[in-house]
């Protein structure tokens, strides 16, 4: 069964990203051949993609933590664990980079990246793309571009490739977290 977090990613969050795709198309039509007109939208698209993926990862973490807490009937123990599971969660503040994601899910006892790599061989490439997206996200947010993240080089096709990677990773995250919970508590998300 798909998690509520994945459904939200595939519908609500995806619809938000589609809107900026539409904005890109509208501006591209109006200003044919003028890359500067769409470059700012591409930058905004990359930022939004990063933030929506961060939101998905945070949602999945919350959902998994809540599922782990469900069998704990002793109220005080349950609330103590609830505090512990989300204490200093990196995804509340930091980018959805592989380190932050892995660290937060490790708090739930989930070796996420090892499981994600085993789940789908394409996830190695997706992971690299996520790292690139996060590097670009920082360059745009801080307006601190470099040779690797040159503002002029950012194109719609690149952002779309990152979005495809996020889509694939989201499905894998959902699957491996669901399996982990099923193994641990006999119940999926």
């Amino acid at each position, binding site marked *: 069964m798909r998690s*509520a*977090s994945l459904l*939200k990613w595939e519908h609500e969050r995806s619809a938000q990203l589609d809107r900026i795709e539409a904005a890109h198309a509208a501006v591209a039509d109006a200003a044919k051949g003028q890359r500067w007109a769409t470059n700012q939208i591409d930058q905004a698209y990359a930022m939004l993609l990063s933030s929506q993926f961060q939101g998905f990862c945070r*949602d999945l973490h*919350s*959902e998994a*933590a*809540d*599922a782990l*807490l*469900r069998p704990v009937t002793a*109220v*005080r123990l*349950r*609330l103590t664990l*609830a*505090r512990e*599971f*989300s*204490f200093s969660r990196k995804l*509340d503040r930091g980018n959805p980079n592989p380190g932050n994601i892995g660290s937060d899910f490790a708090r739930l006892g989930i070796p996420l990246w090892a499981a994600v790599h085993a789940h789908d061989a394409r996830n190695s490439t997706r992971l690299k793309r996520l790292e690139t997206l996060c590097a670009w996200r920082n360059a745009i947010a801080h307006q601190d571009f470099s040779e690797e993240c040159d503002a002029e080089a950012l194109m719609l096709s690149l952002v779309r490739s990152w979005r495809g990677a996020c889509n694939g990773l989201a499905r894998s995250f959902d699957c491996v977290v669901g399996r982990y919970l099923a193994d641990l508590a006999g119940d999926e*998300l």
Partner: protein
Amino acid sequence: MAGRRKVKEVSRLKVGDHIRVEFGGGLVPAVITADRGNIGYGGRRLFTVRAQVGVDPDIEMVYELGEVDIFDA
């Protein structure tokens, strides 16, 4: 064709509410800082709370709870 009306889910809680949560065997003051929506297990609604857990106001904890674990101030 009549459009389908989306039924808004009602909660007694909203962002900014001053509430109380369990800590150390008692209830301590807290504030709801975010409504995370129905992303909890089985679609239950989760809220982010910021609780003051000590005498020192700097000692705060931010975490998530279901509505059932949140008490009125």
